[in-house]
């Protein structure tokens, strides 16, 4: 044993404190200025923002003319968005030609719709079954009589007068609620073993998918009246509604079929071996799994349907976008350099709010239903 040893007699001199690892500075250093390239990119980004943000801010808010402004303010050389125009023409954008004293009727329809629809979206809300029946069966009937009138002492308002957001919402809500079940039935039909059903479904899906929506609307609006005996006319609004629904259901069918094909054969056989009939098997075992897989695809379809509603301008109907366009062209008392731009911006914002909400809700649903595959 040697006596060579090392015993430290004094403390190691303190090192400088490490660079900060938390806080704003540290975050900035790590994410924005980590390398010279990052630093250059960050600076370029900041430059871009200082270039783009102030004019945007000025256009939307800073120099914009508020709801109570006048057209003279909108015509000023440096004026921004003309929100006064939107505010003044709001009724047309929401209701179209719907008689102004009767606009409480669509308002009730909007309110009822929100009251019945929102609880359906919230998983924890009670009375789902009653709620669904009210929304899917009672609500459409009530809404129709309220909007069209002609009964119970309500003035008749023909569908030619409906317009704006009202039309956009009716077409998209009816299209969505009808095309979803129709699409499921078509998808199941396409996988059916019964040759007649299978052929019919395939023929329908392939035919509809092979033509653009514009063509279908055009056909419904221009060709159909020529085939029918003179004097029998089907309401133009109804024709567009049917056209949009059939079109979306064909796409929906293919999305659902994708989900059905993801279900292993064993699931079908397991259902059969439990003694379940075809519809029970589909309802309890196959569809709940299949639909869960294809939520993004389904919502994709809904969103594109919502945006496609603006194509009904082809058949002379005034959805939100067309209502805005009509006023842009015809509201001469509001003409200024930014009037039309503001109108289109307004339409874009409304569309964005609806589509973005749908997309967020679908992400929430995916997370909630993602029980079997959570990692």
């Amino acid at each position, binding site marked *: 044993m040697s006596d060579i040893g090392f015993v430290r007699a004094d403390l190691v001199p303190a090192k400088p404190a490490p660079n900060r690892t938390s806080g704003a500075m540290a975050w900035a250093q790590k994410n924005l200025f980590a390398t010279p390239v990052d630093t250059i990119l960050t600076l370029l980004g900041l430059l871009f923002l200082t270039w783009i943000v102030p004019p945007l801010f000025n256009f939307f808010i800073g120099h914009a003319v508020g709801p109570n402004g006048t057209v003279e303010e909108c015509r000023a050389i440096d004026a921004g968005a003309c929100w006064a125009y939107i505010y003044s023409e709001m009724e047309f954008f929401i209701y179209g030609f719907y008689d102004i004293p009767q606009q409480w009727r669509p308002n009730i329809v909007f309110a009822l719709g929100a009251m019945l629809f929102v609880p359906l979206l919230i998983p924890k809300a009670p009375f789902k079954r009653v709620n669904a029946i009210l929304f899917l069966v009672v609500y459409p009937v009530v809404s129709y009589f309220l909007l069209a009138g002609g009964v119970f002492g309500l003035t008749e308002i023909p569908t*030619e007068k409906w317009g704006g957001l009202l039309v956009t919402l009716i077409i998209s809500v009816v299209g969505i609620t009808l095309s979803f079940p129709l699409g499921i039935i078509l998808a199941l039909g396409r996988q059916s073993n019964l040759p007649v059903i299978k052929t019919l479904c395939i023929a329908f899906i392939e035919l509809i998918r092979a033509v653009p929506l514009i063509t279908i609307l055009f056909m419904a609006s221009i060709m159909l*009246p020529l085939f029918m005996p003179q004097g029998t006319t089907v309401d133009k609004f109804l024709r567009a509604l049917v056209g949009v629904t059939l079109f979306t259901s064909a796409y929906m069918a293919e999305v659902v079929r994708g989900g059905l094909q993801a279900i292993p054969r064993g699931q079908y056989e397991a259902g059969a071996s439990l003694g379940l009939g075809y519809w029970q098997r589909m309802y309890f075992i196959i569809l709940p799994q299949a639909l869960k897989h294809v939520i993004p695809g389904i919502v994709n379809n809904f969103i594109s349907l919502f945006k496609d509603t603006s194509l009904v301008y082809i*058949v002379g109907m005034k959805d939100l976008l067309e209502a805005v366009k009509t006023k842009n062209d015809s509201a001469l008392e509001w003409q200024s350099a930014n009037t039309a731009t503001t109108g289109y911006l307004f339409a874009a914002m409304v569309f964005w709010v609806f589509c973005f909400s749908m997309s967020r809700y679908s992400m929430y649903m995916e997370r909630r239903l993602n029980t079997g595959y959570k990692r």
Partner: protein
Amino acid sequence: MQKTLVTIAVAASLSLGATAAHAAILDDVKAKGYVQCGVTGGVPGFSAPDSNNVWTGLEVDYCRALAAAIFNDAEAVRYTSLTSQERFTALSAGEIDVLSRTTTWTMSRDTQLGISFVGTMFYDGQGFMVRKADGIKSALDLSGAAICIESGTTTELNAADYFAANNMEFNTVVFVDQDEVVKAYEDGRCDVYTTDSSALAAERSKFAVPDDHIILPEIISKEPLGPVVRAGDTGWFNIARWTYYALLEAEELGVTSTNVDEMLGSDNPAIKRLLGVEGDFGTPLGLTKDWAYQIIKLVGNYAETYDRNVGPSTPIGLARGLNALWKDGGIQYAPPIR
């Protein structure tokens, strides 16, 4: 078996069509209680929503006049907004009773589509707009100037013809969309903007400073715009036509919506006949004796509706020009009511 079924179906639809075609449009209109009128999607001055979201315009007033003559109620009209592609189908399929939608009267339309033009509510024609600062006074000065034009339209062909006929250099900047054309002109990408003069006036009113632009006096094409009805129903055609003539006749005789009640006591036989005080010209049309009185009372005469919708005091600001009465230097002319 199948063949017989098809035959029956065809025969049935044919006979249905036949019966429907024989029923007079006037009876159908009276039965439903309103006139279904096809209009544009929104052309200011002609048919467009006003600030109360009610259809207004020269062509809308024609439909209101028709309703006034039939129902003594100018509001008994329902409007169908139609695109230019579907307008004639909607008319021949019976979805609308009358089409009053900036439709140019041409021979092929009149003779080949199963429709009949009633008259010319508005004589339009292609014109040129230039910036006042450029100092151009006539379309003949436009040789070599950059012309903003919508592609694939008769506008383009008319302009090419005009320039060729006058030995001028034709230099175009072509766009697909009307809005783009206007934007390009506004941004100074071209010196001239050409389209129908009524549209020129409407677009001009939208510019920041409308007075910086002038519309040149030359009109280089004929665009007679007028109401259209289905062919084959002479009774309905006559009602549509004489409603238009009544508007003109009232202006010629100086009968307006404000003085029409005084005019009932007029000694002028022409006014007496127009207002149904003397003779009965309404019953042969299937209307009442005071049909024209109702039109004038509820809608006004041609001058009133013109001035209200497109005249010099409106933002559109169109002078009467060709649309003045024949005795005022225009070509609006109504046959006598007698």
